[in-house]
């Protein structure tokens, strides 16, 4: 349905988005780590309106019709990129959530319009259709683009590579096909995003489905076989431009966070683990004199620990790796947050000068050794993992599960799912919200999407 005026949740610039109204609802996917019990994964609705009597509680739930999808990341059908001047279609609605099953390769499309608290499944794109039309499988990141919906995928239907990106029509949700015209040396895939102001796309590397679906493979890790590159693409011509190699000891290159301001040509990406010292790092890519480069800007060391407290996979290292598996950049490009799934830290950096991030502080939740508590729940397990920052940068929603087969390696006791909230003051200081805590029973939450958009859902064509 076309609107009479642009969807009110579309903003020309990130600055205007930050001034928009506060989110009253959030969507979160939960997955069932043990499909043999027959429980379905679900898209849940969290009440984030402090005026509401059900604030901080799950108020809605739409189940996937199948079992064992492993719902993971998801995204909106349309966002602020619809205002881009070269392919404007501002009268569509931000209304549908596209929710891929990372294991089943289905994409469920839920309609949030008739009742935002009760999303309705309106369409399922089957794995076979995605494979037949694009060659890909294991859909991951969803981004609403100016001209289509872009979906990254870990690999091919047989579980091998290459991973890549495919397109969905933003009107009919038909699979349009593979995005890449010339993929150059790129083989592994994971995340995908862009700089709309510079016509470039960036992709990162994890591993093929065969490399990740049975848990982390220590042999592949020590041999440096997981992803350790970043790829730069011509967004318009769909061609590979340049590969940046972090070195084979830098393993598993995950979340991509380009600056929201389209005139700024830099972004951040996290490397989960160094096989040299178990540290995690955050690298920056940037444009300089017409060329693009990378540099390491943050390194987070492993913390020495009593081997008796460590799971078998890392006992021998006598240390907890930070395992930065998620980073998030505030909409005003001022603060960068790193989620350390191993130690439980949520670390905040002032990246006003992106070349020189300044560590500002940390909040610790869960963690392999520390099990840092929440006032409402006591000791937590799992660790700070997915982050979603509100558009105004004042609230960070946190969930604690990484990915079923990998949770098991670091938290063999099983991750008990929760969502909590970290508030950011006007001075930028983080404080854990003592009252906001949503626990799950037997289910694990992963990515969240905030009503009207959040810091990782929208891209903008105007500064």
């Amino acid at each position, binding site marked *: 349905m076309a609107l*009479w005026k642009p969807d009110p949740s579309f903003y020309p610039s990130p600055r205007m988005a930050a001034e928009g109204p506060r989110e009253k609802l959030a969507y979160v996917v939960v997955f069932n780590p043990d499909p043999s019990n027959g429980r379905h994964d679900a898209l849940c609705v969290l009440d984030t309106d402090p005026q509401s009597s059900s604030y901080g509680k799950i108020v809605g739930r739409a189940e996937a019709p199948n079992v064992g999808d492993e719902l993971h990341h998801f995204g909106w059908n349309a966002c602020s990129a619809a205002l881009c001047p*070269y392919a404007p279609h501002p009268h569509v609605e931000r209304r549908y959530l596209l929710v891929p099953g990372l294991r089943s390769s289905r994409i469920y499309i839920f309609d949030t319009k008739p009742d935002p608290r009760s999303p309705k499944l309106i369409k399922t794109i089957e794995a076979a259709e995605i494979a037949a039309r694009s060659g890909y499988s294991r859909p991951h990141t969803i981004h609403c683009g100016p001209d*289509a919906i872009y979906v990254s995928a870990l690999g091919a239907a047989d579980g091998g590579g290459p991973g890549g990106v495919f397109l969905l029509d933003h009107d009919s949700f038909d699979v349009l096909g593979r995005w890449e015209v010339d993929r150059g040396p790129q083989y592994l895939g994971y995340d995908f995003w862009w700089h709309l102001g510079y016509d470039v796309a960036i992709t990162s590397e994890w591993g093929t489905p065969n490399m990740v679906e049975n848990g982390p493979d220590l042999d592949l890790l020590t041999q440096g076989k997981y992803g350790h590159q970043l790829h730069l693409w011509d967004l318009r011509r769909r061609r590979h431009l340049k590969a940046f190699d972090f070195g084979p000891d830098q393993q598993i290159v995950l979340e991509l966070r380009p600056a929201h301001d389209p005139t700024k040509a830099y972004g951040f990406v996290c490397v989960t683990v160094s096989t040299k010292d178990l540290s995690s790092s955050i690298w920056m890519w940037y444009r300089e004199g017409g060329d693009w480069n990378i540099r390491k800007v943050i390194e987070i060391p492993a913390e020495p620990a009593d081997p008796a407290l460590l799971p078998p996979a890392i006992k021998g290292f006598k240390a907890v790796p930070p395992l930065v598996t998620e980073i998030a950049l505030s909409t005003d490009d001022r603060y960068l947050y790193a989620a350390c799934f191993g130690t439980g830290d949520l670390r905040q950096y002032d990246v006003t000068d992106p070349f020189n991030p300044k560590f500002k502080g940390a909040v610790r939740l869960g963690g392999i050794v520390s099990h840092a508590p929440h006032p409402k729940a006591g000791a937590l397990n799992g660790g700070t993992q997915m982050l979603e920052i509100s558009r105004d940068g004042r609230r960070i929603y946190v969930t604690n599960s990484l990915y079923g087969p990998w949770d098991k390696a670091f938290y063999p006791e099983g991750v008990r799912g929760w969502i909590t909230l970290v508030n950011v003051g006007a001075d930028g200081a983080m404080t854990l919200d003592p009252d906001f805590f949503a626990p799950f029973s037997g289910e694990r939450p992963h990515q969240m999407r905030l009503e009207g958009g959040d810091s990782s859902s929208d891209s903008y064509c105007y500064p």
Partner: protein
Amino acid sequence: MNGAWPWLAVAMLGAYHGVDPSMGWLFAVGLGLQDRSRKRVFAALVPIAIGHLLSVAAVVALIAAAMGRGFIWLRPLGALILIGFGVFRLRRPLAHPRWVAMRVGFGDLTLWSFLMATAHGAGLMLFPILMAIPAGGAPPPMPHHHMPMPPPAGHLGPLAAAAVIAVHTSAMLLVMGSVAIAVYEWIGLKILRSAWINLDTIWAVALIAAGLLSLVI
């Protein structure tokens, strides 16, 4: 009466395209903001106007040629195309070219504007007006018909065709440039959130109406 109104209509349609953000001024503003340069806004308007002109000129030239050869089916055929295009715009309101991006040169912008104008049916909309312009040429100095002439309308000379294109594009460029610079300098893009009304349905209905009208003018 019959003498002045077609020219006014040609200019008004140009002004309408000038106001429409998806026809060009927004792209010019976006490029200017990206480069923080007012010069870039002005520079972008030129190829956008040329692309629009080429699209309109192609349609006008086609119609003028058909008139020149006395093609008797021109009126019903033109009407049918207009009505068909209007129905298409009604059924697929989200259809838009998927091609360029933000790093664009003169040629890119010209082609983009040509495609946008063509996909919009900018030139097609002129059909009923062209059918109503009295034979002979340029804007008549004053109305001199005693009675509106009934169809069939006759002939669009090269001078009249060129005048139609020039009047339409000038009006478009004038309005587009004024809006672009006003938004860039003073108003800001927040205006998009409230003022970018969806005229697609109205435009599609107008195309159909123009098709019907061209049968009787």
